[in-house]
């Protein structure tokens, strides 16, 4: 699609942080060094649910090399209140209790105490000397069990259900009665982890002047600032957070775990303290995304028009309220224009780590259910599955059951691109051996794109370059995609801009890198800051030339016959009034969501039940692809994570709530040998609410892969699977049941 009216947008320049990353010079959180650094180790719960009777740190404190030991009692015991620090409304006691347990532990791996010592070995050995006495309580591990009468209660009261969302429009019961075909199915999905490669790590120095300095790997430096200051009862200005490079997050590096604990240890010891999670800690102590149980019922008329839909969604919240079911309930039927809908979603406490966002949180679960049912309807009606989707696709003006009407969206264009893609009409090919069967599946999905505040400052250098600073930590190449938007406005190549992600003292408040917002919102701030630069530069040119009006186009300032390039004018800054600094802060509300879809070809070994992905095509509406390679990278990344979720990933818990596969060996994320090259096709339906038409692209791409693969497996073996993961034992069992 044409981006030819732009000079920078739509091109694929090398990333600014590339050289440091490929040469190993980039500083990640655990690389951060400081004189006098102490090493920390945590004590984590060995029970999924228990009363903490006694935590005795005496022996640990006396261990050689130990400088400080902390427990939950070391936090300022401020009265409880509700706060919203970037992760939704939460009581302070929950944030504090998740960081260090008080009174009760709610999951295996729940942090209880921490030690800081002069060496990591000393800290680890001392941590083992902390005596914890538990009074074990029965644990509850799935939403269904937790909703049952008589289930153990995590936070008292009379239920583990912390929220019930209900959306309805039309009259679904009446519409089902008139439907030619009604399909109702129940689905379950396992708890899965984002699987970012870099474990959480943080170093904190509580300085003698009372300021707290934090260096950490996070998706939101201002969230860390606000949580640390809240839990330590300090003004936000007392905390400065410097985000390091980040080795992946996918939503899991929005919550704050280690920083407040390292701060307490630093306060006690007077020295900088570093805490680093192990992979086991990451699995057991940081937020996975919820396992779920879903019932979806859909009805269509004989022509394949969807006329009614109902969904019951029970999602695990983990140990604290505030799980992902809200978004799941908004997305479950978002791809379709269905007049009669009833949606009920339940957020349910279980004895697992408090859930965190994971790429379109809540939506892949729901799409697995909906897209499986839609596939079944298409089969029953003998209709092409994409044709059925097209007939019912959401478009401008379609109302979702949760209220909003879609503005201009690209659902139709995505489905049409899938239909037209050569993959969709290519033959499946012969199975590779006598016991293999092949199949093809499709699915589509939707995810939002949020706004939130972002700030950007651009300082022009006399050599015609510019320094751009911003507060969005860079997970997916956003330094470059943001700089490209400024470069487009300023009419200079993007390598003339030096973008940097800076600390919370240096830039205005900027929301998390999440919700597919960064290229959209911080890019918008960069666009506005660049316009501010150009506005000022025009005044400089006007001054220089004594001109009334100065025009600016394609990097050239012009008044009548006189013209000057950006670089030439930059060289004259000091004679025309001094430095030029442009800035902007935005808080956009016009975010436009993104639709995406997949075509998946699989081969199932009917002997072993193993599924091989033969060919995989991801299609997504990017609005406007600023840097197409990064958009494709997001689509491929979301696809691979979706493949892992579909085929093998799960928290495998024993009945006592211990995760038995808390290692990358046994958690079984796909490796490079488990996925084919993921083919991508970008669709561009510009977002009318962004200066360049950008839609966030980070998340919608994970929504449909599990469903697409489920539909492909159904196509191959003639049996549908209703549970994720569809691992080899599950596929083998499903086929055995058919014999």
């Amino acid at each position, binding site marked *: 699609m044409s981006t030819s009216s732009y000079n920078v947008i739509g091109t694929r320049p090398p990333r600014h942080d590339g050289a440091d990353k490929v040469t190993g010079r980039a500083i990640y959180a655990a690389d951060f060094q400081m004189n006098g650094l102490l090493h920390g180790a945590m004590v984590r719960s060995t029970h999924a649910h228990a009363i903490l009777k006694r935590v005795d740190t005496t022996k640990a404190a006396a261990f050689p090399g130990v400088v400080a030991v902390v427990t939950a009692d070391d936090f300022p015991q401020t009265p409880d209140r509700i706060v919203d620090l970037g992760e939704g409304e939460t009581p302070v006691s929950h944030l504090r209790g998740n960081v260090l347990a008080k009174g009760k532990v709610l999951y295996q791996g729940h942090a209880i105490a921490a030690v800081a010592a002069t060496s990591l*070995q000393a800290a680890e050995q001392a941590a083992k000397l902390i005596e914890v006495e538990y009074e074990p309580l029965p644990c509850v591990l799935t939403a269904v069990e937790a909703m049952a009468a008589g289930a153990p209660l995590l936070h008292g009261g009379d239920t583990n259900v912390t929220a019930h969302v209900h959306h309805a429009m039309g009259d679904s019961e009446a519409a089902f009665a008139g439907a030619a075909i009604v399909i109702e199915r129940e689905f379950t999905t396992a708890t899965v982890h984002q699987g970012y490669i870099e474990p959480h790590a943080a170093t904190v120095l509580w300085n003698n002047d009372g300021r707290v300095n934090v260096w950490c790997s996070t998706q939101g430096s201002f969230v860390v600032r606000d949580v640390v200051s809240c839990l330590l009862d300090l003004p936000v200005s007392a905390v400065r957070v410097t985000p390091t490079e980040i080795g992946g997050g996918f939503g899991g590096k929005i919550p704050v775990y280690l920083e407040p604990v390292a701060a307490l240890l630093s306060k006690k010891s007077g020295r900088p303290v570093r805490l680093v999670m192990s992979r086991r800690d990451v699995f057991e102590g940081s937020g996975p995304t919820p396992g779920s149980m879903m019932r979806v019922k859909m009805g269509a008329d004989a022509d394949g028009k969807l006329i009614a839909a109902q969904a019951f969604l029970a999602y695990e919240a983990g140990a604290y309220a505030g799980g992902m079911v809200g978004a799941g309930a908004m997305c479950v039927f978002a791809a379709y224009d269905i007049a009669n809908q009833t949606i009920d979603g339940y957020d349910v406490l279980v004895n697992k780590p408090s859930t965190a966002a994971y790429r379109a949180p809540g939506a892949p679960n729901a799409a697995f259910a909906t897209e499986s049912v839609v596939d079944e309807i298409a089969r029953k009606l003998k209709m092409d599955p994409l044709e059925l989707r097209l007939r019912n696709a959401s478009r401008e003006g379609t109302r979702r059951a949760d209220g909003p009407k879609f503005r201009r969206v690209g659902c139709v264009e995505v489905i049409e691109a899938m239909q037209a893609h050569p993959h969709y009409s290519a033959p499946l090919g012969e199975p590779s051996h006598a016991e293999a069967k092949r199949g093809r599946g499709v699915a589509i999905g939707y995810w939002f794109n949020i706004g939130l505040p972002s700030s950007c400052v651009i300082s022009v250098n006399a050599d015609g370059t510019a320094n751009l600073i911003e507060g969005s930590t860079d997970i997916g190449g956003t330094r470059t995609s943001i700089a490209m938007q400024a470069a487009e406005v300023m009419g200079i190549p993007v390598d003339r801009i030096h973008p940097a992600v800076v600390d919370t003292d240096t830039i205005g408040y900027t929301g998390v890198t999440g919700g597919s917002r960064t290229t959209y919102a911080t890019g918008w701030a960069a666009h506005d800051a660049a316009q501010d630069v150009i506005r000022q530069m025009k005044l400089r040119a006007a001054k220089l030339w004594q001109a009334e009006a100065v025009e600016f186009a394609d990097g050239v300032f012009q008044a009548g016959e006189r013209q000057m390039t950006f670089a030439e004018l930059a060289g004259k800054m000091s004679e025309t009034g001094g430095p030029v600094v442009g800035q902007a802060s935005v808080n956009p509300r016009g975010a436009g969501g993104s639709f995406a879809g997949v075509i998946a070809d699989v081969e199932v070994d009917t*002997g072993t039940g193993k599924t091989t992905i033969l060919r995989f095509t991801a299609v997504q509406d990017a609005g406007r692809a600023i840097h197409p390679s990064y958009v494709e990278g997001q689509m491929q990344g979301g696809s691979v994570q979706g493949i892992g979720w579909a085929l093998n990933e799960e928290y495998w818990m024993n009945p006592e709530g211990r995760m038995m596969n808390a290692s990358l*060996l046994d958690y079984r994320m796909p490796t490079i040998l488990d996925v084919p090259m993921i083919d991508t096709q970008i669709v561009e339906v510009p977002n009318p609410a962004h200066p360049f038409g950008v839609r966030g692209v980070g998340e919608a791409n994970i929504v449909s892969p599990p469903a697409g693969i489920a539909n492909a497996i159904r196509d191959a073996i003639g049996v549908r699977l209703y549970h994720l993961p569809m691992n080899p034992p599950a596929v*083998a069992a499903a086929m055995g049941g058919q014999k």
Partner: protein
Amino acid sequence: MKPFDYVAPTTLDEAVHALAGNPAARVLAGGTDLLAQMKGGRREAPLVVDVKRIPDLLSIRMEEGGLRLGAAVPCIRIATNADVRAQYPALAEVASLIGGTAIQGRASIGGNLCNAAPSADAVPLLIVLSAVARVAGPGGIREIAVEDFCVAPGKNALGEGEFLVDLFLPKPAAGFKAHYLRFIPRNEMDIAVVGVGVSATVTDGQITTARLALASVAPTPLFVREVTEALVGKAPSAEAIAGAAALAEAAAKPISDMRAPAEYRRHLCGVLSRRALTAVLQ
């Protein structure tokens, strides 16, 4: 990991001496099991005895009647050795199946055996190749048939102060074929859910030898002797193979854990045995 002492003897005698009277000492070959266990806190060793400087443990040579494989020879040398590739192709294959390139530069078949994991990939193949282990210790040198070497998960038949010197693999007869088939859910970086090693000799249209051993379905690698009895004397056929595969399935004593449910492992024993036997008997 706790601090430990380290010695690297250069002769068998020195090694016997270093291990004597030190029951908690551990032998170090490639370290790809041992060091990972020590780092993970699953194994402690006050003394580590590195055997990679002892020439006997590092040699591969053809002898009268078979191949003598030093216990510490890394997989990469086995996989690329001309004699091994010509006469024991299944061994070369298993040596390039274990781990990836980096691991193969260190990991030894001796270590794979001594580690005594039920899932060890080389062990079922060693069993069907009728390998014999030669061990040295305070009492001198003795031999142990490989099928008797592993006695429990992580436990082998070595006595106090004993260590593995080498493995002897009898020379294959004409018409002999061996094969190891492993099932893992991913295509790399996984532990055998089930592994099947098979070997057979077909002479004049008749099966004259047959052996089958399983990984990951019992506390130790499992030698299924019934398969030998069932196949020897028969002509290779789909029925004979199906019958033998059913015996393997029946012999398995799998458990359910995070890697797979027991019923599924049992089912796989049948499927993989059938496929592996088909590969050697066809």
